[in-house]
């Protein structure tokens, strides 16, 4: 049996991380957390998380950036907003999860081949290029990138969807794709975050 | 012993104050008997140089009416101040700016533009405007400058007494002369009129109810005024409660509400603010909409409450007007 040291030293913190997150629109109220655990109590996916949402709040506030960004929790969040509406301190936990996801993608620290961030990225790429999402294509790309084997397991579903007219590999496009590209480029230049 | 010298002078005014002096009727003879009039442009011919030539304080008293709007008026005020023992602001314009001071709601340019270009009754195709100097037959006379601001006399020179009114009543004028000549002088700076509001001498006072609650305000042209009933009880804005008495309630006796020409009592700094405070507090409505509905009857609060007193009010002039000092 391997024994691991679990103590945290001050040096393990990335100072300023918590404050930085709390300065983002929608994340301010993290300051007010009283660690009651309501978020975890109502989260339908907390049972799979390595850190409960409450722990993610505590870790973020205390600058444990590395731990937070590497955790599964942020990728397991399905954005159902149950925590946000139930939180007695009105913390917008879902928005904090989004913020942490963005930071993880930005820093490239999410688990490789972990399909959720890949989905998010494929999704944005498709939207940027075409303006709309073609679900069939998106899912196909996702499986090819992450787990081609598993894609075989989904083949039956795909066939079924095709039979019922719900699955298509045709890419939907909008007309003003150039406009869309410019909007996206403008945001890139003007990023809200410092 | 020579008789005390007295001067009358007028600045920005309508001449009504001069009329009052004449209105002293027989009494004027008594006055003339006791004094030498050394300056009275409206009635007698004296020149600036005559006054200049006098020794300082040689004039016993000068009664100056009219507001101060031009550089010439300023100079005359200064000159007369120097030459007089007592300088008396005579009438509402000299005391508080009077009707001319309503022009303090506008800039000089706005006024000149209107009067020399836009006024519908005007025939001025060259759009000529007043100048400060001109070439005329080899001469180069300098003309008075039209100032940006209408001023009271005491905003330009030191004033000893004030005789209020638009115009002052003969009685007050006579009383003032008597006081001056007898040497029985009030403290410097006094307004020579009772320091109590007009209601005190208004014949309608008894008809004012003790439970007035305004639901509307009417202007005199909007309704036929009851000749006996307190104007406020009729919903007509009457400045009487905020205005000095001494006029014998001339307007209210003539079935017109008081418009405030005698100015505030000594205890009030801003006549308009005070009548506003009193009238508004007694409105019946309690909600903003209802209050504003009642107040719609006072479409021009500045013109209503500061008809004579704008130059002397706390704000003096529309505050966002620029000083286009040189008309650039």
């Amino acid at each position, binding site marked *: 049996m391997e024994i691991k040291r679990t103590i945290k030293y001050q040096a393990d913190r990335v100072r300023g991380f918590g404050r930085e997150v709390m300065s983002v*629109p*929608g994340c301010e109220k993290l300051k007010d957390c009283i660690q009651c655990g309501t978020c975890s109590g109502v989260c*339908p*996916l907390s049972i*799979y998380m390595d850190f409960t949402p409450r722990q993610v709040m505590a870790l973020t506030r205390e600058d444990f950036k590395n731990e937070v960004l590497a955790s599964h929790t942020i*990728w*397991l969040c*399905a*954005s*159902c*907003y*149950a925590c*946000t*509406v139930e939180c007695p301190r009105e913390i*917008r936990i*879902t928005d904090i999860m*989004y*913020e942490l996801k*963005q930071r993880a*993608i930005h820093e490239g620290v999410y688990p490789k081949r972990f*399909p*959720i*961030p890949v*989905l*998010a*990225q494929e*999704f*944005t790429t498709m*939207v940027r290029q075409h*303006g*709309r*999402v*073609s*679900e*069939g294509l998106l899912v196909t790309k*996702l499986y090819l990138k992450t787990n081609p084997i598993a894609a075989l397991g*989904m083949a*039956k*579903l795909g066939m*079924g*969807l095709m039979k*019922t*007219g*719900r*699955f298509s590999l045709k890419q*939907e496009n*909008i*007309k*003003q794709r150039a*406009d*869309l590209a*410019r*909007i*996206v480029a*403008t*945001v*890139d230049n*003007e*990023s*809200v975050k410092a | 012993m020579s008789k005390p010298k007295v001067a009358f002078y007028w600045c920005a005014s309508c001449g009504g104050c001069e009329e009052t002096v004449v209105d002293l009727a027989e009494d004027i003879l008594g006055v003339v008997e006791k004094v030498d009039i050394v300056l009275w442009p409206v009635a007698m011919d004296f020149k600036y140089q005559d006054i200049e030539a006098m020794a300082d304080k040689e004039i016993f008293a000068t009664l100056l009416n009219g507001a101060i709007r031009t550089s010439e008026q300023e100079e005359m005020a200064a000159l007369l101040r120097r030459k007089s023992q007592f300088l008396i602001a005579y009438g509402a314009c000299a005391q508080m700016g009077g009707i001319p001071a309503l022009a303090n709601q506008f800039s000089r340019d706005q006024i000149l533009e209107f009067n020399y270009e836009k006024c519908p009754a005007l025939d001025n195709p060259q759009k000529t405007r007043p100048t400060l100097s001109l070439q005329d037959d080899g001469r180069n006379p300098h003309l008075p400058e039209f100032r940006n601001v209408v001023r009271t006399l005491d905003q330009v020179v030191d004033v000893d007494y004030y005789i209020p009114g638009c115009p002052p009543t003969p009685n007050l004028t006579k009383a003032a002369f008597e006081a001056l000549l007898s040497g029985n002088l009030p403290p410097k700076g006094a307004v020579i009129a009772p320091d109590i509001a007009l209601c005190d001498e208004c014949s309608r006072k008894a008809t004012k109810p003790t439970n007035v609650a305004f639901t509307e305000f009417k202007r005199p042209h909007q309704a036929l005024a009851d000749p006996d009933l307190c104007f406020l009880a009729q919903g007509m804005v009457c400045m009487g409660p905020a205005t000095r008495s001494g006029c014998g309630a001339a307007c209210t006796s003539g079935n017109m509400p008081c418009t405030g020409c005698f100015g505030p009592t000594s205890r009030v700094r801003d006549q308009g603010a005070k009548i506003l405070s009193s009238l508004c507090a007694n409105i019946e409505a309690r909600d903003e909409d209802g209050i504003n509905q009642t107040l719609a009857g006072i479409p021009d609060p500045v013109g209503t409450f500061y008809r004579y007193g704008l130059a002397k009010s706390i704000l003096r002039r529309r505050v966002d007007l620029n000083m286009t000092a040189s008309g650039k």
Partner: protein
Amino acid sequence: MRYGYFPGCSLKGTGRAYEESLLPVMQHLGVEMVELDDWSCCGATAYMAVDEGKACALAARNLALAEQGGFAQVMAPCSACYLVLNKTQHFMQDYPAMRRLVDKALGSVGLKVSNDTPVRHPLDILLNDVGLDAVKQKVTRPLKGLKVAPYYGCQIVRPYSTFDDQADPVSMDQLLQALGAEVIDWPLKTKCCGGSLTGTLPEAGLRLSYILLKEAKKRGADLIATVCPLCQFNLDGYHDKIEAKWEPVRVPTVYFSQLMGLAFGMPANRLGLQRGFIPMPSLPRAEAVAA
């Protein structure tokens, strides 16, 4: 009643049955839905995870298109679109920096958004603009005896909607009752179906779908009525996997709009009902209702 219609990507794909049923039903009720010209992806949840600013700008582009098209209100039937468009409006209102960013981004292509176009859900419109009485009047084939579990999913009631209770919504309950159906009372109305996790992380996501189906079945529901294309997909598409892992819980899941169409006497195939995997149970015998 005229609304700018924002279908969103799903209603053109996996959720096309939703659109196929919603359009005729709304038309039948005199509600005019005009599809926004050249609408783009709402910026959905996946985009939020990558870049909030872009997500908002994308959503705002659609709001700007609605304003440009002269629509006073927008109808967004997809729960995710409904949430994202609303969230964008809130963010623009609450955070001046976000507002400036969006203005700049849209300005770069000559678009403007005044941010005062309400984004409404069809349920909201049906209850508050059309009215249940008008709906009842159109019912020719009441869904008598049909036990329906109303399932709202998470994103239409949380966290921005104001037309229904966040914890215990009732709008669809009332609508279904107006159609003559019997509504099952269950505590899972707003529980998450697993969202996109059913595909990306099935061991976690599918369990949530399974719980919903299991509880609906246990409580005797003939079917589940939903308002969200993703929920419908999750509850309809994975029965073989759920059976393999847990037990058979074959309860069909349909859109509320499909049930409306049926109650209005429209043929099932005109309502996209043929597109579900789990077939719709046969309706109790039609009782003709005098019009």
